[in-house]
C-alpha cells in the first residue's frame, strides 16, 4: 500500500512538472517513478491478482501516458518508442481490466504519426490492423490515417495544408518533421515531372516562406536556377542499357547450362 501511495504522490508531482514545462525535473521524477512501478505486483508481466490490482494498473498506465507525452516534449523519438511499447500492453492485454483511457486514441495516433515520419509503413499498417472501427473514427487517429492516404496518393499539398489543423498540440513536433519529408518528396517528383518551374511557383508548391528560402533549397539540391526559374535536367538516359549485352550473354549462358543438364 505504501508503495502505491508513494507512486501516486510522485505521479502528481510529475503531472505538475510536465504542465509547468519543467522538463528536467519531470525526467528525474519519471525515472524514480519507473523504479517504483517495478515494485507493484499486479503489473504485466506478473499480473498478480492483488486486491488493489485495478488501482495499480491504472496508476501505471497514467505514468506511462505521462512518460509518452513528456518524451514528445523532449523531442526524443527513441524514448517515445520505448515508452509507447510499454504502454501498449495496457491498451491491449489488460484492456478488459481497466476503464478506457481518455488519452488512448491521441497517443495511438501519435505513435502512428511517428511511424509515418520514420517511414516505417509496414509497421504503420500492422498497428492499423489492431484498431477497432470506433478508434479509427476518433479525430486523433483518423487524422493520421488520412495523412497516410494523401502521402500514398501524392496529394502532398493536402498534407501541407493539414498542418494548422492539428487534433492536439502534441502532434506539432512530428508534423514539422513530416513537413521536411514531404518537401523532399515533392522535390523528387518535380525533378521528374517538370522541365522548368519558376521560383515563385516552387515556393508555393513546397510551402516555403519566401523566394530566398526556395532558392536556397534549390541550391542545396543542385538545381539549375536561371532567369528566376528552375531548370530540371530530367532523368538521364538509363545507364542500364550499357549492361544489356552483358546481361544477355549471362542469360544465354544460363540457358545453355540448364539445357545441358536436361539433355
Amino acid at each position: 500500500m505504501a508503495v502505491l501511495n508513494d507512486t501516486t504522490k510522485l505521479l502528481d508531482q510529475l503531472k505538475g512538472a510536465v504542465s509547468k514545462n519543467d522538463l528536467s525535473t519531470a525526467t528525474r521524477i519519471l525515472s524514480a517513478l519507473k523504479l517504483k512501478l517495478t515494485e507493484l505486483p499486479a503489473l504485466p508481466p506478473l499480473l498478480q491478482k492483488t486486491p488493489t490490482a485495478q488501482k495499480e494498473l491504472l496508476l501505471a498506465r497514467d505514468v506511462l501516458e505521462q512518460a509518452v507525452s513528456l518524451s514528445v516534449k523532449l523531442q526524443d523519438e527513441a524514448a517515445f518508442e520505448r515508452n509507447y511499447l510499454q504502454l501498449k500492453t495496457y491498451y491491449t492485454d489488460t484492456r478488459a481490466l481497466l476503464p478506457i483511457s481518455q488519452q488512448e486514441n491521441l497517443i495511438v495516433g501519435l505513435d502512428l504519426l511517428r511511424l509515418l515520419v520514420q517511414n516505417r509503413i509496414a509497421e504503420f499498417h500492422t498497428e492499423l490492423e489492431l484498431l477497432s472501427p470506433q478508434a479509427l473514427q476518433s479525430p486523433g487517429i483518423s487524422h493520421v490515417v488520412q495523412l497516410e492516404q494523401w502521402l500514398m496518393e501524392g496529394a502532398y499539398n493536402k498534407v501541407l495544408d493539414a498542418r494548422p489543423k492539428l487534433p492536439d498540440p502534441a502532434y506539432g513536433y512530428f508534423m514539422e518533421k513530416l513537413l521536411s519529408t514531404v518537401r523532399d518528396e515533392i522535390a523528387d517528383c518535380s525533378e521528374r515531372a517538370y522541365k522548368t518551374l519558376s521560383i515563385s511557383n516552387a515556393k508555393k508548391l513546397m510551402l516555403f516562406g519566401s523566394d530566398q528560402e526556395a532558392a536556397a533549397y534549390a541550391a542545396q539540391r543542385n538545381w539549375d536556377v536561371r532567369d528566376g526559374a528552375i531548370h530540371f535536367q530530367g532523368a538521364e538516359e538509363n545507364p542500364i542499357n550499357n549492361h544489356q549485352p552483358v546481361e544477355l550473354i549471362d542469360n544465354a549462358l544460363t540457358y545453355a547450362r540448364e539445357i545441358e543438364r536436361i539433355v
Partner: protein
Amino acid sequence: MEIETAVTGEGLGGSPISFALWQPERALAQVLSQRGKLLMRMGFMQGGKLYLHIEEAVYLKLQNLLDLVIDTKKGREQLSVESTVNLLVSNGVGKDFYAVYAHLMDASLIVRRHPAQWLLLPEEDANCIWLMTGTPHGAQPESMMVEGSSISKVSSKVLPPVSCTSEGRKKNMKHVSELKQRSWWPRPVECQAEPPRCQVDKSSPFTLTPFACAPCDYAGLEDATLRLALDVFPPNSKFSRKRPDPLIYHVCISQGRPQGREVMSAIEASVGQVSAQLAANVSLLESAVRSKETRVLAGRLLRQTTAVRKNLSAENLSDFVKSVLPRGYPGTSLLLEHLKMASSSMETDGTDAPAESPAASSSAVGLLPELEIYAYLLVVSFLVDKKLYPEAREVVTAGVKRLADFNRRTLDGLAARLYFYYSLVHEHTGTLADIRSHLLALHRTAVLRHDEYGQETLLNLLLRNYLHFNLYDQAEKLRSKAQRPEVSRSTQQLCRYLYYLGRIRAIQLEYTEAKDCLQQAARKAPSSAVGFRVAVNKWLSLVRLLLGEVPEHSEFTAAGLAKPLAPYFSIAQAVRAGDLAAFRQVADANVKVFAMDKTQNLIVRLQYNVIRAGLRRINLAYSRISLKDVASRLGLASVEDTECIVAKAIRDGGVDAVLDHANGWMLSKDVADIYSTAEPAAAFHARVAFCLDIHNEAVRAMRFDAAANSKKLETAESARERVIAEEELAKAYEEEEGI
C-alpha cells in the same frame, strides 16, 4: 490374333486392364493377366491360378478394369459389356445380389461369396463349395436356373454349407472364434456367438432382423428363404489371401426387389457398418503402433475415420467407447456422459443406451494410449459435427490434458489432430485468446520432441490465433523465429501456413511475396476445399490489384467461388476502369463484407491504384490535357491535388508525361515502341527462368523408394483413396473457414 496381343496386354500400351477367360462349364472366369490392385482381394486361387466368380468379373468389367474373353470355335472372342452382364442372369446370379455385392465393393470392403474361401485345393470343386449361394432364391424364374444345366444339378441337392467342410472352412471358423475374443467386436445383444447377420426383408419395409440363433446353426438357417450370401471383410490394402482378416459380418438376401442405395446405407448403419469400420480402424491403429508406422497413423487412419464420421451416432460411439476403454478408466465416464447428453438433446431415438456388455472390460491392461486418444478424437469430432461446442470443449480439454502424460512418436499424428479440434472448439466458443499460452507451450514441447506433425499444426494454430485478433506483429515474430520442419509433413498444413504468411505479407505491404504465397496456397489447395479457396482468392485478388495487376476474369467465376467473390469482382472492375466514383460506391456498399474478411484496410489502400489506372488511361488517350480536365475526369477535388498526384505518378513510373505548371497542362510523351526496349527480352527471360525452375523442382521432387517399382499406374482403388483423402481435406478446411 488381335485377341492374342490384347491378352498379353501389350497391344494397349500397358493400360492396366486385366484379362480373364470365361469357362462356362465351371461357371468361373480364369484370370489370364492380372493388373491392378483390386484383383489382389478378389477371386480365389486354385492350383496357382486365379478364378473369379461371375459377379466379380462383371464388377471389374463395369469398372473397365477387366476384359472377359471366351473360347469359341473361331478362336477367342472378347465379350461385350451387355453379354458379360447377361452372364450374371444365365448363371443364376440375380440383380439384387449383384447390387448388394457392388455396393459393398464400392465401399472398399472386401467381399466374398459365402462361405469365404480364398485358397482351394486342386481337387476341390468350387461349385460344391459355393453351392450357388448367390442364387437369389426365387427372384429368378426357375426356368432360368435349369438352363445352366451343370449348376442347377448341384443346386438342386441342397447341402447345408456346414457339411462342405474343408481346410479353409475350419480356418475361417477359427477366425470367427478368435473374433469373439476381441474386445471391440460389435456385439448385438441377441447374438453373442456369431457375427451379426442382416436380413433385407420385403414385407416390413427395410427392417433389419438380427438373428437370434444358436451357435453354428447354419443348417437351420439355410433351409428357408434365407441364406448367407456374402461374407464381408474389413478394408485392407495389404490384403493377403493366405492370411485374410477376420470377417466382419455375413449378408443374407431375402426375397424381394432390389433395394435402393439409401435403404442399403440405412441398413448398413443399423447393422453395424459403422462399428465394423471403427473396428477396422482400431485394428489398423493397433498394427500401425506395433510396427511404429507413423505415416499410417497420420494418414490412412484419419482418412478412414473421415469416411466413417458422417455415419456416427451417439449410440454406436458410446458402444465403441465402452468396448475400447476399460470401464473404470476416468476418461470413459466423461466421454459417455457427453455422448448421452448429445443423444438426448438431439432426440434421435428414445432408446436407452445398450446394456453394458461384461466382456468389454477384459482388455483393460494393455490399453494403447493411441487408442485412448483416438476415442477422444472420435467423440470430439462427433460433438463438433453436432455443433455442441461447450461439451466438445470439455472433452477436448480433457483429451489434451491426457496427451501431456505421454511422449510417444506414434501419437503425434493423432495429437496434432486433437490440437486442431482444441483450437477449433475454442474459436467457436470465443475463448481463443485463453489458450494461446497453452498452445505456445505445446509448440515448444513439440519442437523439443521433434514432433513434426505437432510443430506444423501448432504453428498454424498459433498463427491463426494471432491473426484472429489482428496481431500481425506477433504472428510475424513467431513465424520468423519458430523452427519449421524442412519438408512439410502434410499439404493441408503447408497450404494453411502459406495462406497465413501471405496475409501477413500483404499487411506489411510486401505484395510480391504475398502474391507468391497466396498463389501457391491456392494452387496446392484441393479443388474440393471451397471455403479455403474462397478465402485465399479474396486476398489474392486484392494483392494482385495492389501490385497493379488485373486478375483474370476466370479467377472470379470458378465454380463455387463466383458468389462469395462477387464484391471483390466489382472492386477489380472499378480498379481496372480507374473509376474513383464507382470504386467508392462499391467499397461503401460492401463495407460489412470487407470488414468481416478483414480486408477493409487493403481496400482503402487500393484507392491509389484506382487513381493511377485512371491517369494512365488519360495519358494514353490525350497528348495534352489541362489538369482541370484531369481532375474532373478522375473525380478529384482540386487542381492543386491533381498536380501533385500526377507528379507522383510520373515519378513512380506509372505515367509517361511532363507537367507544364505555367499553363496547367499535362503533356504525354510519345509512346515508344516497346519492342525497341529491353522489355521483350526481360519477359522472355522471366518465362524461360520459370520453365527451368519448374523442371528443376520436378527433378528434385522425384524420389525413388523401394516400393516405387511395384507401384504402377493409379488403380481404381488408390484413385478412390485419393478422392476420400481430398474430401477429408475439404471438410477440414470447411470446418476452419465456415465459422
